[in-house]
């Protein structure tokens, strides 16, 4: 109490009046709610995943061992068997995709194969067959193709490590189990035949 009395005595008379409803002195941050799947690709940082920017066009096969966000255009197959591929709202992939997890906000014309999950989000457009343990298609998305579920444990992939510094400890791609190929893969034109 002595401290407060002393402070009151030392108050500067020119000090402005406090507001009638003063804001709490401690700024409370909202609880963290974001998760990888809930975040929009443009909010993701380059540290968490490699990024193909909006103005970039890649022609040819893309493969690797890190997460990838495609906001540009890729004409060719993508192979990230241990990682997550996100096709951003402005992204466009013309080719087959094989990854641990695939999230599509933009458009894909080709087959999708993911050991864990494929998410086709609202307003996305996908023409091609899907093969995954967990297919998720939001209602306002457009999807044309076959959906086939697989058992995740049947084609297990080593757990993904989050940072590039761990890359040296990763299992080489040659040691990861081979994914079965789609038996009814659609041709690149999007025609679907059984």
């Amino acid at each position, binding site marked *: 109490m002595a401290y407060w009395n002393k402070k009151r005595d030392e108050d500067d008379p020119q000090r402005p009046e406090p507001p009638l409803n003063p804001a709490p002195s401690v700024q409370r941050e909202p609880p963290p709610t974001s998760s990888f799947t809930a975040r929009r690709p443009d909010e993701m940082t380059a540290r968490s995943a490699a990024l193909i920017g909006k103005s970039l066009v890649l022609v040819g096969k893309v493969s690797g061992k890190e997460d990838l966000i495609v906001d540009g255009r890729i004409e060719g197959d993508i192979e990230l068997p241990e990682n997550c591929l996100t096709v951003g709202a402005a992204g466009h992939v013309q080719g087959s995709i094989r990854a641990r997890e695939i999230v599509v906000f933009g458009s894909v014309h080709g087959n999708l194969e993911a050991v864990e999950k494929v998410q086709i989000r609202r307003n996305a457009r996908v023409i091609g067959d899907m093969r995954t343990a967990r297919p998720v298609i*939001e209602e306002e998305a*457009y*999807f*044309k193709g076959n959906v086939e579920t697989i058992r995740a444990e049947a084609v297990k992939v080593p757990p993904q490590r989050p940072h590039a510094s761990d890359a040296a400890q990763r299992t080489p791609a040659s040691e990861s189990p081979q994914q079965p190929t789609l038996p009814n893969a659609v041709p690149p034109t999007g025609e679907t*035949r*059984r």
Partner: protein
Amino acid sequence: MNPSPLHAPAGPAAAAGTSDARKSHGLQALVASMASKKHVYVMDLGGPVQENIDFVTGAGHRLYIDDLLYAYDYFFSAKEQAECAFRSARIEEFVESALAFDEKVADCILVWDRLQYLPPAICEALVERLRRILTPDGLLLALFRTDSAGADRPPYSCRILDGQTLLLREQARPRPAETFNPRTIQRLFQKYGEVRFFVSRESLQEVVIRR
């Protein structure tokens, strides 16, 4: 056809209208026919619905998804749709692009209410193609609203809640609907082997058609 199918303007209309869960005898008939078979190939032509994906793939069946209305909107120009004048070559081209399947591959086809929102010439061409796609014992489930004469109605988003219950939710965007009654439905499917009608609530006619 539009130059690039990957740059169509917008996705299917949002499901935003009223919704209603109901017992479906048509769905029950389909599920019963699927239960006796393994590795059934199901075609859902009402667009992607998560409940339907879970139901069909959860039972171990294969599923094909497309939305006939979206395919129609995408394929035909606004002028063609407004004039409702479709050359037969264009109709054939559309049917080939929308249903590019071999004959007798689908065990079960869910067209829901989509046929009602397509022009008669296109509807008839699709029905004939669907007949070819069905296996000899294959079944097709269609819904028709018999109270939609001359009115624009929003199509349903049809969700399979379980083997006998459907949740019908009206989509946001109304479309002109063709008028159907049991006689015109029978005529539409006259090349099929059997047409069974199940009257549902609110003038909704469920029809199960066997190839």
